[in-house]
């Protein structure tokens, strides 16, 4: 019996072949990332959990086709984002309104009181247009660079830039013009 440790590439190769242990390990490694993206895009807690489940299933089903042209984490984020956006579309088709009470109620933030409550941020994010919200999440939650976001969203890098700028501005406005920026302004802001 040949024994070896479990580097990422080995895990991916095994998972692509249907190795349940490797797949299980990969899913656990990326679970929090997938879930965070889903919760920030979908907002409603129960729907976000559904999106997380769909994303994980999509990852398992698509794994055999992962070709390694992008980083595995980027590939995972793309699937998570698509699953979250699919969930948002499903929600739109539902006759019942989103259950606002089911959104996360997060604890009050730091002792300085600079951010009154993280709930404010979550709610503010939820009020942004979908494309801005998604772009902000991919940039500031998933830590992806512009090129990766552009690849996931299927838009030019310039569009990513403008969406980020507009999203930040709107987020700041919703939060009551808190000091969310350094004061630098993007020309695109005038167009919002």
């Amino acid at each position, binding site marked *: *019996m*040949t*024994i*070896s*440790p*479990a*580097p*990422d590439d080995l*895990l991916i190769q*095994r998972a*692509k*072949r*249907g*190795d*349940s*242990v*490797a*797949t*299980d*390990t990969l*899913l*656990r*490694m990326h*679970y*929090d990332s997938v879930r*965070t993206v889903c919760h*920030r895009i979908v907002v409603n807690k129960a729907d976000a*959990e559904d999106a*997380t*489940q769909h994303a*994980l*299933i999509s*990852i*398992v*089903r698509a*794994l*055999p086709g992962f070709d390694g042209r992008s980083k595995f984490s980027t590939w995972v984020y793309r699937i998570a984002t698509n699953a979250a956006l699919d969930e948002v579309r499903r929600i739109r088709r539902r006759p019942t309104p989103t259950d606002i009470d089911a959104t996360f109620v*997060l604890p009050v*933030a*730091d002792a300085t009181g*600079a*951010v009154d409550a*993280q709930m404010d*941020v979550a709610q503010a*994010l939820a009020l942004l247009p979908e494309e801005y919200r998604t772009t*902000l*999440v991919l*940039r*500031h939650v998933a830590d992806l*660079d*512009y090129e990766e976001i552009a690849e996931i969203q299927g838009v030019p890098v310039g569009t990513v830039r403008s969406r*980020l700028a507009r999203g*930040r501005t709107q*987020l700041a406005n919703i939060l009551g013009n*808190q*000091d*969310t*920026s*350094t004061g*630098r302004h993007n020309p695109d802001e005038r167009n919002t």
Partner: protein
Amino acid sequence: MSDDEQLDPRIVAALRDIPAASNEIRDAHIAEALSHISPSVSQRSPRRWLAVAAALAVFAGGAAIGRGTRTSGTEVAASPGSSNLIKNVTPDSQCRTSADSGKVGQYFLGNEQREVWASNGLLFVYVSSTCKELATFTIADAPTSDLVCLPSIANATDSIIGGYTMDNAYRILVNTPTDILEFSGRSCSQLTKYPQP
């Protein structure tokens, strides 16, 4: 190209701060996803696939060993400092119900489905259909290791039963026709073997 300075770090922190999923939700999500693995992509023999699939469909119960798992580089850390075992998540098999028991996994020997549980330093092997206890083994000592160990299976008759964490060591059990092998550690070395009951 960095623009992070344009968004208040406190807001970024708030955006990233999602309450962690409970272990039950995480395990259920992953178990459901694993059930969608297509047998057609497996290069294992059909019989071996059947055994592994059956065993690993419940891997979230035993191998949820890795629950709370984090990765750092190429290393995968299992639940640190824990001698607690993961609760059973398979509703159709409850050969042990005590809170300090965890189902490691199940496997086939011939046509007989068996399951392995761990509790209080012991491994228990049961016949799944009757819960008849076939054997009890004292779990071997192992060096502390927070790395998930993935032994390569060379023989078609072998299959991974599942994994668990005990005494700060992540362990994997492998079924062979004659023994149950236990692996652990950075080098995924074989700790011991228990005779197949």
